[in-house]
């Protein structure tokens, strides 16, 4: 503490590494990329809220959450645009992920940094580009006009809106590059990283949302009939797609890896400074049936009813129904499975009132862990082959103004896997136009996709792609009363968190909000 020197005022901070010393090596960039993956495990991303928001808005899911505002946000009733729990967390945490990715991408081409090999550099760049695109894709599905930020943020940034077209165009460019850089396969310890197939699958979805059917079809062709043919196939047991014991199977093009290795014992997420923060998902707690867990999201009854319209080739109910829904008549509909237990209780033991007995709960992704804990480690299959097959059918139908043989073959692959007859042989879908007419095929595809992919956060983007026309809305209103509140040219997208619009003169609120 000398009287004459300033040494006493130079106090280093050893709680964290100074940024000036970072972003210098391959290891730094690799760790920077890992931090982007780390954003999967947050309340505004894949641990919690995005599931309720996407499935709840779509016509397959419905929310009767006791937290009124959470439910209202899935019903096109937005009172507080800055509602913290859902829109603000989703918006904020996606941008955190994007800023983490931007930090890596700002340094990845720095010639000063020595990589062990060019391949290592490419792998980091490819994964990071893919991850950033993945987060932007969901932001765009929800908001359409969010700012497209591609470099590391500064505190004073005040970005303006981007258009959906601008964003998708950039994602297409980035994912095309990622597909070049990413490998066909990863070793067992690296499962959970995107592959070339993941890149083409996500790219196909972006193109499809962008109505660039030709480009979408090219990507899907790579997956289905190109190099991907040797890598991907439908699994024999449909429910293997949602079972923690059969993760990373041949149907999976990308899955978010969850783990209970950071077991903290209680509901703790979103602490960005805690190395022990959870790496698991709360999906099961969110969609648990009434009387268990949070019960924030459940099934609209039509999903169950539609499943029951068509029987398998041996005259039984569609097995997908058994693994998709919990409902009162399930035991009667599937006698071959015996009495099923829902968290150690039979349906009847829940003693639901007459009205509640008509409710249908979501079984997909449930693990039957008893008692229900906040977290499970069941990987989330974000991109799977059945989706790609049906999307390919959609694209081919659009490109050829009617279903091609290939399109019908894709649909049949999805149907026959669960023992349903080929479309041409269906005893329920007997209208011959389905096999020939663009519109009839598309209408049928809506049902096929709706049942196969229910509650996989896919339905909302499908609805958006097909458009909220008067006719489509009329159909939706029949299936989901929430759509009575839907206003065209407004509710296709969420309101931007008001606090962002208020504090950023360059950002405009979405149309009509």
């Amino acid at each position: 503490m000398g009287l004459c020197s300033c040494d006493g005022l130079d106090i280093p901070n050893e709680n964290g590494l100074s940024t000036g010393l970072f972003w210098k090596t391959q290891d730094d960039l690799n760790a920077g990329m890992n931090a982007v993956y780390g954003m999967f495990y947050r309340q505004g991303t894949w641990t919690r809220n995005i599931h309720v928001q996407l499935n709840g808005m779509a016509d397959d899911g419905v929310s009767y959450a006791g937290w009124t505002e959470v439910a209202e946000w899935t019903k096109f009733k937005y009172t507080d645009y800055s509602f913290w729990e859902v829109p603000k967390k989703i918006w904020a945490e996606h941008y955190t992920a994007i800023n983490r990715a931007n930090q890596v991408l700002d340094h990845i081409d720095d010639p000063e940094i020595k990589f062990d090999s060019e391949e290592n550099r490419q792998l980091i760049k490819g994964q990071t580009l893919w991850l950033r695109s993945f987060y932007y894709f969901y932001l765009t599905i929800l908001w359409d006009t969010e700012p497209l930020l591609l470099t590391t943020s500064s505190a004073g940034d005040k970005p303006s809106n981007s258009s959906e077209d601008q964003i998708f165009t950039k994602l297409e460019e980035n994912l095309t590059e990622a597909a070049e850089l990413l490998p066909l396969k990863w070793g067992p310890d690296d499962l959970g990283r995107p592959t070339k197939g993941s890149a083409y699958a996500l790219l196909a979805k972006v193109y499809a949302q962008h109505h660039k059917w030709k480009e979408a079809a090219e990507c899907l062709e790579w997956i289905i009939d190109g190099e991907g043919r040797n890598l991907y196939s439908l699994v024999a047991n449909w429910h293997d797609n949602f079972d923690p014991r059969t993760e990373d199977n041949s149907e999976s093009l990308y899955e978010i890896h969850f783990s209970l290795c950071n077991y903290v014992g209680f509901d703790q997420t979103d602490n960005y400074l805690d190395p022990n923060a959870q790496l698991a998902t709360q999906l099961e707690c969110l969609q648990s049936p009434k009387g268990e867990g949070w019960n924030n999201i459940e099934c609209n009854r039509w999903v169950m009813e539609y499943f029951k319209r068509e029987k398998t080739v041996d005259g039984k109910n569609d097995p997908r129904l058994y693994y998709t829904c919990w409902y009162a008549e399930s035991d009667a509909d599937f006698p071959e499975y015996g009495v099923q237990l829902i968290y150690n209780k039979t349906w009847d033991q829940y003693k639901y009132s007459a009205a509640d007995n008509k409710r249908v709960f979501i079984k997909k992704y449930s693990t039957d862990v008893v008692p229900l804990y906040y977290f499970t480690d069941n990987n989330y299959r974000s991109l799977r082959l059945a989706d790609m097959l049906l999307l390919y059918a959609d694209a081919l139908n659009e490109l050829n103004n009617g279903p091609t043989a290939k399109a019908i073959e894709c649909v049949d692959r999805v149907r026959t896997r669960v023992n349903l007859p080929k479309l041409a042989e269906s005893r329920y879908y007997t209208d011959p136009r389905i096999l020939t007419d663009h519109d009839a095929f598309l209408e049928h595809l809506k049902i096929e996709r709706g049942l196969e992919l229910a509650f996989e956060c896919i339905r909302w983007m499908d609805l958006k792609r097909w458009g909220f026309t008067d006719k489509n809305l009329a159909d939706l209103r029949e299936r989901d009363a929430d759509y009575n509140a839907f206003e065209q040219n407004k509710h296709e997208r969420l309101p931007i968190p008001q606090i962002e619009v208020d504090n950023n003169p360059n950002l405009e609120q979405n149309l009509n909000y």
Partner: protein
Amino acid sequence: MMKRLLSAVAALLVTVTVFAQSGIKGNVVASDGEPLPGVVVTTGDGSAKTGVSTDIDGKFSINAPAGDLLEFSCIGYKPVRVEAFEGMTVVIEEDVKLLDEAVVIGYGTVKKKDLLGSVSTVRQQSLQDRKSGGVISSMQGLVSGVNITSSGQPGSYASIQIRGIGSFTGNSPLFIVDGSYGGNELGLNVEDIESIQILKDASSASIYGSRAASGVVIITTKKGNSNGLKVKFDGNTQLYWLPRYDLMDAETYKKYDDLAYTNAILQGVSGVKHLQNHYEGDTDWQDAMLRTALLQNYNVSFSGGGKESNYYASINYKDDSGALQYTGFNQIGFRINTSGRKGIFEFGENFFFTSSKTDNLNGNPWSEFIAMPPTVPLYDETHPGGYGYGNADRANTYALNPLAENEFAHGVNTQKYLYGDVYGKIDFIKNILNAKVNVSYKNYFGQTDLVRKKGNWAMGQGDDAAHIQYSTAYHNKLLVEPTLNYNQVVGRHSIGAVAGYSYDFFHEDYRSETKLDPLVVGDKYITSFNSATGNQTCTGSYIEYALMSYFGRINYSFDDRYLLQFTGRRDGTSRLPEAQRWGTFGSASLGWRISREAFFNVPWIDELKLRANFGTLGNSNIGAWDYMATINTAPRAVFGKDGKVIGKTQSNLTNLDLEWEKKTTANIGVDFAALDTRFNASLEYYYSRSTDLLLAVPILLTTGNEGGAPTVNAGSLQNTGFELEAGWHDTKGDFSYSVNANLSTTYNKILSFGYGSTVQYTSVSKSEIGKPLGIWYLYKTDGIFQDAGEVQAHVNSEGKVIQPDAMPGDIRYVDTNDDGQISSEDRQVIEGKSPWAKLYAGLNLTCAWKGIDLSVTSYGRFGQWVYNGARAAAADFSTNQNNFNDYVPWTQEVHSDIIPRPVYGDTRNSRADQDRWLENGSFFRFSDITLGYSIPDQLLRKIKFDQIRFALTAKNLITLTKYSGLDPEFSDGGIYTIGYDGCSFPNPKAVQLAVSFTF
């Protein structure tokens, strides 16, 4: 000097009789050790009273037995009573007149008449019935320009703001205890306080440099005086309780909840098909959680000393049983202050140690009281742990059972402070030049032990693991401060100067460890980490900072008429980047004592002084390393099967170019004393302007920033205000009384913002350049739609129906932008309803007659509009919260124009950002009314006591307000939402009985 001459003359006159006596011999000296002639020494009572006087050498001899009480009195000195013994030396102190009273101004004192800054003083007499709380809350209502808000929780501290908000980074003033820097509260015991001075303006505070930008509170603790041992006991016992909401019972609740469901079903709210199958309970959650608490506080002090040394030692014990279940607080403290003198040397030290234990409250029960339906039973065997809470069918709510929440997660916080400060002083030239070195060291250890038992307190809670957690915070603080003092009077010139250096270093360490699955034996959770069997995790971090300063001050006065003061300080801080580390700040003050001028000849005016000052202070009260960007190494991800990898990234954005925040204050004041100083008043006006404010300006979510907004030198803020303190005191025979009043106003205005912004929003407020901070910005309501016709008639200028979906009984919102719909564009500044108080006032009355004394402390704030978060939380049955008994909503039968119809599952009427939740928050509170009784002197003499007093105090029993919330004096929501009462913890009401005696 005049007094001494007079007493010497008196001594000569009585000398002859004095030496005719024999018995006890002794001498009397003044506090500076000089012998005092002419002091009257008496013994006995009434007619038996006899007396002698001291001689020219201060010696006396009196015919009295050893152990008898002798009284010493002399004009201009305070009388003292001392037990007689042979060879005794008695020190008597000057009875200082108001204008000659010393005021501590930092590294020295000045007489009140020479004071140039704005300083308020609180003396120990004012604190005598306020010893059970903390130091800050003891000052409440006593001084102007100071805003104190207590929080009411056991073991928690009040907050203090001097002259409004001048900074965004902590508006807490600097605390100086016996010349050393203290923290906010320090566990200091009110009983040990001799006086508190509050320095409000730049000229007074600037000697303390950068940390004084929000003012300085100087606390002087008691020292021993020189007349043998004095023992003082002080004990008080308080019964206190917390105010309660007037909430519905189960029957009333069910009536409205059913109505809300019926309306929802009629309206077709998705998923609502039938009424709730209500639980049969009728729980008064407040009854279950609240209780009357017993607060006890005891002090014993020993003080004394002699010519060369003195001492003060005290012990304090406090016990608070807590007005909420599971809470409580106790504290034990010791203090030792001693000092000694020998020739030109002087030394001294102050030591104190405090140890406290707090049973922490988990959660905020005040919001749960509202959230939890009264139908839910307190206990429910079917739930894990056996407590009642929501159920999807019977009471669809995620509200927390406050009792269970505290039963299953209970934390105990123990804190230990050790504080020591040692000084040495050399008088090179007596009373003219001295040097002093002060070294102080503070050590703090705080620890929280948490036990999380198995058991749930809310619907939807998962299967939480039991665990134990041990968290600690440890800090130490070192201050080294040499100073040089010079004072000399040459003719009519009086000169004073101080120069010094200061180095201050702070280090704090945090650790937290958690282990799952503690051993359970029967019902008992074993808290040993070794016996727990589950996963364990730990975290830890530290902070460190230092401040280095050079400072000086010159005071000059000519003929006691013209006063001048200059202060300068150069501060270097570790909290700013190297290039910006050093800042130089200073102030200048002028004073003119008009009453000393020859032309001024108004005999009844004792003092009239004009003073003005101007100065700049720096502030760097930000995080230790806010100017450094760091990499967060916490992110993790998994690949393969449980293959965890480490991620690193910059989470928190940083501004690397931070510099000193500067606050410039101009202050003018008038001091006035009249009628033999029975009346005195000070009037002040101040203007302050803070620039380069160090502020964590909220940044956009699109930046992806995590961990709070980064600090930036953002914009500037202006504060202006008036302060008036006035007092009158008088004595008529046995009756004495005093009235002291203080009034202050403060007005702030934003001059600019960071990052080029012109406006900042929160969900309920707007802060705009040219306006005060945090003005309410809400949807404006315009009554209730009484029928369908009114819904159709609510149109914009183009005739478009604004709320086509509204039903009779819904709120009519104002379509501010006239676009024919209600959207975020319709929020508006609520004119005439500022969250800022227009006037702060305090009024203190005391009177005494013979042994009886009465004092009343009261204060208030006027003109502020506050947001009643409890009303907003109750949310009109849109969820299943409880509501208040004055809730009479719109129904088909009863057409309310204020409260809308209840609808479950629909937030259209209950949105948080509407003006319906604003209320006039003005209040005037009688915080302390004390009636005391002291045993008369004659009786005291017989039992050889100096003083015995009993007092009864009523605390916060009377509050005048229209505010319908629990307490109009609440901890607010921060600078952007200053009037936001979000179910804040209310202040307790209490009755206190105190006993004190000295012998």
